[in-house]
């Protein structure tokens, strides 16, 4: 029996299921909801960031005051200590000014002044690097501010590019433009939700027939078990891919119509390691346009999508249970969120855990020790391995039935 007939039949059955239609409707409702949420988050982010820098400004002020007091009160300090304190005072004086300037731009929220943030941050980063290299401030300063030397160098590189090319900076990740909506679509937390939705649809393509007993109609038709299996896998891959792409386009179109397309060439920074299979991310910095970033993002997303589909299908074939399948799948996918928030950027888990690669921004911008090409390879290989395991299980499975 022709495979394309079987695949079309599977797609037909999929769209006849009320549950699946409801999930798809919920998916688009989620996209609408998340965009509404993002639009509300814009102002909150500006306000919170202004307060954040204001807080840092006050802390810098405290350190400055404390150091000045020490210089005044303790006359028996050594010369070396005095010089240290003076260098710190000099650093924190400059730091305070920069921090309050940044805070005020966030508070004012005037796009014409965004460039000041970029130039001020650049100056700040250069200052920090110089003062660390000259031992004027300790390296703990980096941990306190949650960045590394590499982050600072990268920041200078991208900021300078923005200034040199007179690009309108994006200082708020919730900026509502079509272009930024594509970047937000590829945000790790968003993709976790999307993968869970794909898992729900993937398990249904097998389990719905087991649970309602309709497998007795389909699996006794005169075609091979492997054709049934391939039909299911190929059809859910087609459906899931189309759903994700249409979701991204829907998102982009909706935001663009309301807020404008934005700059499709907005720069992102990465390193040469993105084009190499490497276990360290050394190499020259380079700029990627937003379009390039999004394309690479979807290229990385596709093997993760395949992995999700065969993982869920495999668990459903082994367990014959919706509850267990959903539980295991959600746990494995959701673990990426926990690892992102509790595990160090430099942990090897970022390299070897398939769903760590859902945090596409970190992978492409080389913010942790994951590797772009390794992410594609790892997810592809694991998808193939799980496919073979699921295939063998399905081909030899006894359908004992009577769950309906």
């Amino acid at each position, binding site marked *: *029996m022709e495979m394309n*007939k079987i695949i079309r039949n599977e797609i*037909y059955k999929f769209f006849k299921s*009320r549950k699946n239609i409801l999930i798809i409707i919920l998916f688009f409702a989620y996209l609408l909801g998340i965009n509404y949420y993002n639009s509300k988050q814009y102002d909150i982010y500006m306000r919170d960031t202004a307060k954040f820098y204001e807080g840092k400004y006050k802390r810098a002020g405290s350190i400055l005051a404390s150091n000045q007091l020490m210089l005044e009160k303790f006359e028996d300090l050594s010369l070396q200590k005095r010089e240290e304190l003076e260098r710190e005072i000099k650093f924190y004086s400059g730091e305070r000014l920069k921090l309050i300037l940044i805070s005020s731009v966030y508070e004012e929220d005037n796009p014409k002044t965004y460039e000041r943030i970029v130039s001020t941050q650049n100056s700040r980063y250069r200052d920090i690097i110089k003062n660390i290299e000259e031992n004027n401030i300790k390296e703990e300063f980096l941990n306190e501010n949650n960045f590394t030397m590499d982050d600072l160098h990268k920041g200078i590189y991208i900021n300078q590019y923005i200034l040199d090319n007179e690009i309108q900076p994006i200082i708020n990740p919730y900026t509502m433009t079509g272009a930024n909506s594509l970047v937000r679509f590829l945000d790790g937390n968003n993709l976790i939700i999307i993968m869970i939705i794909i898992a729900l649809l993937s398990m249904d393509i097998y389990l719905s027939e087991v649970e*309602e007993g309709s497998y007795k*109609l389909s699996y*006794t*038709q005169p075609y091979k*078990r492997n054709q049934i299996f391939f039909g299911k896998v190929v059809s859910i891959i087609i459906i899931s891919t189309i759903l994700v792409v249409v979701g991204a386009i829907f998102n982009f179109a909706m935001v663009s119509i309301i807020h404008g397309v934005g700059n499709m060439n907005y720069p992102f920074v990465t390193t040469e390691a993105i084009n190499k299979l490497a276990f360290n991310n050394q190499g020259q910095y380079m700029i990627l346009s937003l379009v390039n970033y999004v394309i690479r993002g979807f290229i990385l997303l596709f093997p993760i999508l395949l992995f999700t589909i065969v993982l869920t299908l495999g668990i459903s074939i082994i367990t014959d249970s919706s509850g267990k399948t959903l539980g295991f799948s959600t746990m494995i996918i959701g673990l990426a969120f926990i690892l992102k928030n509790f595990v160090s950027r430099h942990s090897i888990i970022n390299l070897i855990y398939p769903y760590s690669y859902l945090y596409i921004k970190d992978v492409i911008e080389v913010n942790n020790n994951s590797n772009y090409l390794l992410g594609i390879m790892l997810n592809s290989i694991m998808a193939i391995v799980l496919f073979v395991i699921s295939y063998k299980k399905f081909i030899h499975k006894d*359908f004992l039935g009577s769950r309906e």
Partner: protein
Amino acid sequence: MGENYVVEVKNLNKTYGKKKVLDDVSLYVKPNEIVGFIGPNGAGKSTTMKCICNLIYPDSGEIKINGYDLFKNREKALESQAALIENPGLYQDMTGRENINMIAKLRNISKERVKEIYEFTEIGEALDRKVSGYSMGMKQRLGLGIAIMSKPRFIILDEPTSGLDPTGIIHLRNTIQKLIKEEDMSILFSSHQLGEVEKLADRIICINKGKIIETPKSLEQRYRYIFQVNDNDRAYKILTEEIKIGKAEKISTDTIKVELDNQEELDIILQEFIKVKIKILDIHKESIDVEAVYKEVYGDE
């Protein structure tokens, strides 16, 4: 394939964990035959039937359907077969019509045949309602319609009367009898409704604890007829000395009981009696008390 059987099962074995659910099961079904498959719950009836539909893989053994080995040539073997296992397997979110059309498309069934099946199901306007709203009888009729759509040579019916009311049971019985006559099919069916087994089955197979039980003589070959004729002696002589068909026994001065191997032998006897001008006053199939035999075989189980 022995003796032109539609289905031949040889030495099936199946074990789950430590429990042997099928122990050297062998059976056959001839063309145009209705075979009843009886046994207590857990005897192995459904497991055997699921093996024949390839929903379950036996550990060892051979199954041939219409001459094709099920494990070496699944597609050809299943082309000649259809199955209704336990409750009909239907897509609940689809209408009856959609269920039929979906399988029709997969099996390349002609539009004329599909229309015949719409009528066969006798569901009427409810064909355009979702199956989830159907009664058990409607689901059974729909399932049977889909099963016969491709004109299989052989149908498996596992507990077809389960959940049906008396009207449904009668309707199903009539449908099965019609299928044998008009659609040239063989049927293997299991049921706990021993009355239905008695009315329908030409032959009965007993299974218990995974083993086929030697069928009591009283249940073997159900082609037993009682003839009431105008010339008993002549009729007896023709049967025993001339055409030598079956095993004949004089029961009374005007009745003979004849035990035959198949339906064709009955036709030969009737033609011969007409030729020699023996008048047949009455002819009927001998009924067997299946319930009594069941108790004999299974005791209190």
